[in-house]
């Protein structure tokens, strides 16, 4: 039987898949998982899971779409290039807004 092994390095971390072990049963799998993935490496906890118990959704499965079919890259913050020139533009726009604000205040005061 194949057991997939997930290791958590520290209490706050997620369990991350690190490989698998062959073992006849749960107890041996736990032991081998420790030997192979925790005895000489930093680890706080291991999840040892029978491979067949893992429910998988594969992108090749019929009717499954993953990653989005229409173009939605504009939603990704990484697509926005925020270099120095950008910063200048933002600053200019900020100044513009401040001026407009002051203008409104003055207009109100004159009323």
């Amino acid at each position: 039987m194949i057991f997939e092994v997930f290791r958590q390095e520290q209490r706050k971390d997620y369990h991350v898949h690190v490989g698998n072990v062959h073992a006849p049963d749960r107890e041996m799998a736990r032991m081998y998982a420790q030997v192979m993935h925790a005895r000489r490496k930093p680890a706080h906890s291991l999840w040892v899971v029978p491979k067949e118990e893992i429910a998988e959704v594969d992108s090749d499965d019929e009717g499954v779409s993953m990653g989005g079919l229409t173009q939605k890259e504009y939603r990704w913050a990484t697509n926005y290039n925020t270099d120095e020139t950008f910063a200048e533009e933002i600053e200019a726009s900020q100044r513009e807004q401040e001026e407009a604000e002051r203008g409104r205040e003055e207009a109100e005061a004159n009323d």
Partner: protein
Amino acid sequence: MASARLGAPGDLSEREREAVEALLYQLADDEFVVADRYTDWQCQGPTLEADIAIANIAQDELGHARLWYDLLQDFGYEETELIWEREAEEFRHATLCEQSFESGDWADAVVRSYFYDVAEFLQVEALAETSYPRIADRIEKVNGEEHYHREHAQNWLERLCEDAEGTRRVQAAVDDLYPYALTLFEPTAKEDDIVELGIRPTPLAQLREEWYDLTGAFLDGLGVSVPDREALDDLVAEETGRDGSHTDDWQRQYNELTYTYRMLDRTEARRLMADPDEV
């Protein structure tokens, strides 16, 4: 009844020092030789996982051997004298450690490590009370790894004994290895001093009783029989290792172990790791 604490290595009387040395040779040689035997299984284990597990245990035992050989270096010995240039008959390990494996007989490896690790566990437990501070400092480290070794052997024994064929193999290994396993509890020439000075306050004879009870009860539960208690004294292998007498397997293992050192005309041992006192 606790004995007085012994001093630093340089402050020991001749009697104290000889007893400490005798115990350390026994401990270090056991670990070193059994670890080397386990490595015979490297790339030969029944599964990749089993292979890695036994290699891991071998690595642990080599680490323990280093801890004990290092304490012998307190008395001025060099690693070359302690291992590579020492005569084969100067080694004091129990002859259980040196027995070669019948090709492919995994039950032998499992039974041997079970016998060895229960004995080591009891020995280490007894050493927790040692009067020699240098040993006391290192016991916890050794103990921390021993639990896994016993668990490994017990897990395997339980599974091998699930059917008749496996049980037969385990029984055969028990019958073959028992006389040699008993040599783990054979005294060195300094046993009385070791106990009286509190270096290991529990006599080996008593450890053997505890070992007999523990291993006997566990194996019995698996349907494997062990010799009667009354028969043990007569059953001990003729070559005990503790007095320098060894089986032919040891000479072969020794030749192989020291082969590279001799072939390359070495006169010193390369230090690959920091001194245990510095980590």
